Structure formats: C-alpha cells, structure tokens
C-alpha cells in the first residue's frame, strides 16, 4: 500500500445478508485491514439511494463503497441488479459533479468471503489514497 500521508475517509454500505456477514467473517477471522472504513448496514444494497452517495461525497467522504450479495444470490431475489443498474447512472453523475468515478466502488461479497472483504477494502483504500482528498471539498 502506498503511503503518501493521506488517510482517506471511506464509507461503506453493506447489505445485511451477504456483505455485512462477510465483514463479520473477516472480523471473526481476525483479517486485519486499514481503519479508514465505516460501515452502515442496510438490509439490501438495493436500498442504497443515489442521494446517500451524493451526500457522502458532498459532506467530505473521500470514497464510498456499496457491497452487496453476488448477482443471483440476492436475499431479495434481484435487489442487487437494481443497484448495479443504478451505479451506471451514478458513475456518470459523479463525473459531472467533478468527482472521479473511481472513488465509488460497487462489489459483491458473500457471507463466506471474509477474505474477499479484506481484499476489496484494502485495495479500495489504497486506490482512494492514490486519488488524494475529495476534490469538491478540497476546492
């Protein structure tokens, strides 16, 4: 991981059934990861409103993650399909607002993938570190 002295603020929305449980498993397995992340639990990644992500960036978060069940494994049948579709729009919207779409991460972590949770969080933290502070707040 690069060390440029910048500690990004990262918010993750995790769904109750897969990614939150995956994060729990990472904890139970004592998989160490950067302490920059704060998790908000929602029942389904499909609940994550565009407004929340925009709010997170506008109030100073440097990176936002949305982690759901794998496609096909959604506890609510197809909530994550909608999340995925919404993200295409959201990426474009962020670009228009002057926020690098790379500051937003959508990924799928199952309840058995503690290791993957660690990987995704570690890599994303590193990526946001490289990107530096959120440009709209820094401006």
């Amino acid at each position, binding site marked *: 991981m690069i060390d440029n002295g910048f500690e990004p*603020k990262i*918010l993750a929305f995790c769904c*109750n059934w897969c990614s*939150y*449980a995956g*994060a*729990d498993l*990472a*904890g*139970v397995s*004592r*998989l*160490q*990861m950067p*302490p920059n992340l*704060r*998790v*908000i*639990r*929602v*029942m*389904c990644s*499909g*609940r*994550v*409103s*565009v*407004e*929340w992500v925009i*709010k*997170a960036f506008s*109030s*100073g*978060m440097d990176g936002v993650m949305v982690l759901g069940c794998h496609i096909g494994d959604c*506890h*609510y*049948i*197809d*909530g994550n399909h*909608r999340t995925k579709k*919404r993200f295409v729009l959201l990426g474009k919207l962020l670009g228009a607002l002057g926020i690098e779409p790379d500051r937003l991460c959508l990924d799928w972590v199952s309840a058995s993938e503690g290791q993957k949770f*660690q990987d995704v969080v570690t890599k994303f933290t590193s990526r946001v570190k490289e990107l530096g502070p959120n440009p709209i707040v820094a401006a």
Partner: protein
Amino acid sequence: MADVRVGVFICHCGTNIGGVVDVPSVVEYARALPNVIYAENNLYTCSEGGLASIREKIAEHNLNRVVVAACTPRTHEPLFKNTCEDAGLNRYLFEFVNIREHCSWIHMHAKDDATEKAKQLVAMGVAKVQWLQPQQEYEGDVLKASAVIGGGIAGMTSALSLANQGYEVHLIEREKELGGLVKSVNRLFPTNVDADKVITPIIEKAKANKNIRLHMPAELKDVKGFIGDFDVTIYENGADNVIKVGTIIVATGAQELKPDGFYNYGKMDNVVTQLDLEGKLKQDKKWIDDLAGVTMINCVGCRIPERTYCSRFCCITAIKNAWILREANPKAKVVVLHRDLMAYGVEFEEYYRKAMEAGVLFLRYNLDKPPQIIGKEKPEKIKIHDELTDSHLELPCDMVVLTTPLVSARDNEAVSKMLKVPLGDGMFFLEAHLKLRPVEFATDGVYVAGSARWPVDITESISQGYAAAAKAAIPMSSGKIKVEAITSFVNIGECIACGTCVLACPFNAISVVDTDGKMHAQVNEAMCKGCGTCVATCPSGAIQQKGCTDQQILCMIETLAGGL
C-alpha cells in the same frame, strides 16, 4: 424533537473489544454526544448482569432510546431488542453498533485508530437513534388450508401429511389421474419393487382422505394474495373456481426429455428412452427373449452446453433396466455406456455392483467419439469407443435405450409468474436457499417439493413432500404470522402514483390504489420483506422504510463527516 433520551451501553467483550479499543474513553465521548443521558461500559453487555443494567437504566433515567456498541447485530440484536421490550421500551427504539467484528478484531495493531473509529461508530448510532420511531409489527391470520399443486408422488405425500394433521388440503392435478411420472415407471430401484404396488395405495389414500379435496383435471389459472390468505383460481369442470388457502405447495414435477435429433431417436425403430422402455416392460415381456443385445447410452441431452446439469438418478435407472433385461435374457449382451457413473450412497453402490455381477457391461464413452448405431430401420450393431481401454468395439445390438434427463414442466414459467416465485437453471423452481431453506421459496407461505425444484428420485420426492408439508404447517398451526417492522410505508401526500416502486418490488407487495380520488402507492405489509429497493427508486421520496429512512441514514453520514 421531543425529548430524546438516549442510553449508551458499550461492551468490552472481555478483551475482545476492551483489549484493543479504549472503552472508557469511548464511554466518556458518548456521554458528551447530543441527547445522551446515560452511558456506561460493561464487561459483557450480553450477560445477565449487562442486560439487567440496561433494564434498570431505562427505568432509572427514563431512557427512550438505547444504543448498544458491542458485537454484530446478526447474532445479538434480538437479545437486546427483547431486553428493551422487557423494560417497557418499544423494541424498534434500539440501535446496534458493531465495534468488534468491524473494529477491534480487524484493527488489532492500531489501537488508537480503532478507538477513534469506535467513537465515530457510536456517534453515528446515537445520531440515527433519535429519528427512530416506535413500530407495531404487522399481524395477520393464516387460513388453515393448503393448496398442493401437482398430484404426483411429492404432491400426494405433502397433501396426505397435511390432511393427516387436520388441515384442509386442495390437491390440484392437471391430468385425469393421480400419480404423475411414477405411473409410467415399471419397477423402482433399489428394491426393484413393482411401481404400481407403491403408488396405487398412496393414490387410494389420497382419494379417500376426508380432508383432501381433489381438483382433477384442473388447471391453475391465477394466484392472488399472500401468506395466510391466498386466492387460488383453478379451471375445472368448465368453470373457474376460487379456492381460499393459507399456504401453497408447488409439486408440479418434471418431464422426461424426448431426445429428438439424438441417435436417430424418432427415426429408427427400437431407439427408445428409458421411460419408453419402462412402458414396454410393464406389458408382455416375450420380446426380451429375442434380443441379441441392448445398449443404453447415458447422459443423452444433458451435461452438454445447452443443458449442463446432471439429472442425478438416471444412471441408477439405466442400471435398473439393464439389470432387468439381463436377468430376463442372460444371453443378451447388455451394455451401459456412460460418461461418468453416479451410484452414490451405500445402496446404489451395492445395486451397481449387483448389476455388474449379473453380467451388465459398463463402458465409458466420450462425447468426442460417440457411439454409432448401425442399421437401417432398426439397430443391428453398435460401434463403441471404450475410453478407458482406448479401443473400438462392435457389438450386437437390436435395441438402443437413451437415458435422458428430466426437464422442467412446460408451464413452470406461467406458474412462477402466478406465484411470484423464481425459476433457476433449466427453468426449474428456485428455492429460497440452496442449503438452509431447501423446500421454501423466498415468498412466505409458498413451498416446493419434488422434481419441480430439481430432478429427484422417488425417495427424495417423498422426503421433500414431507418437508414441504412440515414447513407449510408452521404458519397454519399457529394461525398467525408476524412481520418484522422493517417494511416500507408510503407518505400518501407526497406520492405521485408513478408506479416505479411497484415495478421495483421483487415481492409484488406494492400496488397503486385510489383513496377518495387520490391515486397512490400502497404497501402490503404481509408481503413486504423490508429490502427497501422501492425506497431507493422512488423519484419523489414518498416511500420510506421503517428503521432505515433517508433521514436516519443521511443523519449518520452527516455525523460521520462532521466528526472526521
């Protein structure tokens, strides 16, 4: 906001949290947060001492919100919610903050960072809790009647099980007789008992049971409603008939693949499927005496790119019929060509061994070098490449039996739409969870058994029939269902009745209705599962989710940003 009084309880979890996070400093921090009236730390908040303290402090400080910062809500939330309830506080005025799995355990070597993170997580929880509202859980009645769709072995097993428990059962069968696929089978593995001797008594019992209303022949036309209160419309005797039930079991079965285009099936005489052969074996068996050779080809039409799955029991079917033919005519060359042989479990392994001992020849073929049937109107010989010895054989063969998989019933798609339950690979029904909920659908009150779900043999069909009946009996025996109050609700004034939420809902729980001339969305609480997908798609912010409103989450985000 009217007098929000928050109590915060922070758990050491022995050294699990306390060994990394400086818990006393988090308590100190929590005390200074807005609306926090009381904060304390506990060695184990989940211990009886910790729970007693929550109850006492609620009374002592007149707390009306509780935040516990400890482990994961996935295991401990119900315990703390119950504790709040015991103390007279509505269980939905509670918020859980995870500072173990999501903090102390993953930042063991960064104690300061972990303490800072724990403080922020607690602040976020305290921020959210002020917006929580007391909630009532929806309670509905469950009719003590069940509709079983499909009168095969699985459906009849479910129907009889429920009927014998005293529930009214409507058994709906499309054909003119009960029994399903088993009616076409000659003998059953692994005992080679006559199939009729097994199925006939079950059919008689189903027909005679006073709690079973038989609808036959009848077609499923429509299903409306939800767990406890379904309206099932069927077409029978030339008219639509509406049945009211509390639960539904789908046991629509499957059908044998007719392998048109494979190995001259349909073009050459004496090229038949296993089920065709079963039909022949049920009649006069003299023809077997004249056989010089029979070759069975397994995995025809399955485990190929168009149909990747294994139908699971057809290997045993091939072994059974090969063995029966060989015993009836020991002079006949009986060969089973397979790509892999599935004879799982002690009984099937033994069955396979006995067939070999009886003289059935098992050879392995590869799809790259498939067997070739030689003959004009009917098979005369067969050319085989045995993969294991890499040798070409030519064997006498006047009958070829193609072992084909079960494929989904032709109207699964229509049934799945009526019931709002999903289909998976190969258009078979998809259960709620492959391991943990094998006979339930994600939709409450609807269950599945038998080959409707996946190709299964008769033993498994019966087990699943019983399992589905047991599951269906749970809501019917209590007669009540309770729904966790995490459902969506509509602020009618703000709703523009665009119907976006109706389309977004995976459970068809939302409809647009007219109240005194105002069109608006309406959530059926019995059907809503609380995913919140509708909320995120609502363009006017009119629909919200209990315990996860935009206001609650935005407040958490603001608090986090402010504290960084």
